[in-house]
């Protein structure tokens, strides 16, 4: 499955029944240098649109929302020592957490790559 995107600039990538979530290049650029990431613990239940993580830069702190509902499987603990990964490689190595998707239909609410690109362009 190709990546899907939210209006809050999260991306989600499905690998079997496991989903991987991160933030987009646009988001990391807006934030500036990331200094700290607060990750959810494994086992936590999240609902679509609720806070799942926090990403802090020097000038801002942003909530990272769960794009879909489900259970957190693994937080990317590498980000704890190297928050800069989020800036350097937001699309791959800078992933935030993986989760089990409880309701795959929720993915239909999200944008595909092209739609997201248009959305960002409009933000100016």
């Amino acid at each position, binding site marked *: 499955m190709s990546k899907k995107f939210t209006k809050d600039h999260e991306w989600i990538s499905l690998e079997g029944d496991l989903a991987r979530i991160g933030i987009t290049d646009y988001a990391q650029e807006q934030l500036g240098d990331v*200094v*700290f990431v*607060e990750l959810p613990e494994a086992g936590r239940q999240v609902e679509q649109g609720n806070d799942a993580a926090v990403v*802090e*830069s*020097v*000038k*801002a*702190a942003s*909530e990272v929302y769960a794009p879909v509902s489900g259970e957190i499987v693994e937080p990317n603990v590498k980000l704890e020592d190297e928050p800069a990964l989020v800036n350097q490689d937001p699309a791959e190595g800078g992933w935030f957490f993986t989760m089990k998707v409880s309701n795959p239909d929720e993915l239909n609410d999200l944008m595909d790559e092209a739609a997201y690109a248009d959305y960002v362009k409009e933000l100016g």
Partner: protein
Amino acid sequence: MRYLPLTPTDRGAMLSRIGVNTIDDLFIDVPEAARLDGPINLPPHQSEMQVERDLFAMAAQNKTASTVPFFCGAGAYKHHVPASVDHIIQRSEFLTSYTPYQPEITQGTLQYLFEFQTQVCELTGMPVANASMYDGSTATGEAVLMAHRITRKKRAVISARLHPHYRGVIDNLSDMGGFDVASPADSVNGVEDLIALIDEDTSSVVVQYPDFFGNIMDYSTIAREVQSRGCLLIVVVPEIISLGLLKRPGDMGADIVTGEGQSLGNGLNFGGPYVGLFAAKEKYLRQMPGRLCGETVDADGKRGFVLTLSTREQHIRRDKATSNICTNSGLCSLAFTAHMTLLGGQGLRHLAALNHARAVHLADKLEGIAGVEVVTPAFFNEFAIRLPAPAEQIVEALAEKSVLGGVPVSRLMPDSDMDDVLLVAATEANTEADLEIYETALRDVLKGVSA
């Protein structure tokens, strides 16, 4: 008017450039119903001399600590502040500068804040400290809220020997924020059973060191018990000079240490401004309220300091902030840093030993008076005595003899059945002669009482 540089000529020219006729034209958005035609009914401007006259008259009515034998404590202590401290805090660049948000031109402030943080860490035995809070009581309130956030629980167990005002602050925050508090029933002596009150919804246990009655206790065992139950131990230190001589709360295992720094560098000032101390374990750093100053380098590789981890604060996190705090105690923390620097660790220990010696001498003398009982077994520079009559009455009688003999417990704890208990503090500011005057005065007053 001496504080206003603009002249009528200036004003006229400026109005012209702006393109309006009168100053009223610039207040055009004020609803007519709220416009005031003339000055409000308050006295008109006064010269310096006139203002001085008025304020001298008010000041003259107050009995000052330096002019009479003075023994009041209960969270605010009379100590000698070296002359250079007051001079340092009046330097223009410290007195009239702003929060160091532009670090390139505020390295003075930032460097002393870094020094302050280090001093607080070393005194309390904790790895991180913030750049100060308003005072000890609000710092303690914030510590409780922080413990709730960390543990995601809503209840705090508070020692009955915590300063009643500090307790009031916690009660108020808890009441308003939807949290709970619990305390054991207590008397002046005996060991409180705080552990028995811990339940699954408890985030923290709060104790004071030395406690409100002056009693010193090692909290190491309590720390272990509290932590084994998944809670945080918060230790409150209202007399920072005690840490010159006493075992550090950090070494006892405290999770958070809050305190009042007034004793170093800052005078009594009728209750404010004071300086709140806040220190915690490293793992709780990101949940700490208040400002933090950190070390870094500039573009030329030179060491410098900046406010850091500000994203916890209200101006960025807004409704998700760790607290709504916007200021620290600035100048009061500078006074603390300067005084601590002048003392050095050795000097602080010496000063603390002097305080304790005075208090012991005083306790010895007062114990010798019939009807007077020293009820605090181990103390630093403040202890509680039981009197044969209401303490408030005794204090008034002593005041008439020009002795400010201490703080009656009933002034802060009215329903505690301790109307006869008086808190007495002695510091390096007391002379041996003061102690003798106190002893004599108290004997006299008590004679009148039992008659």
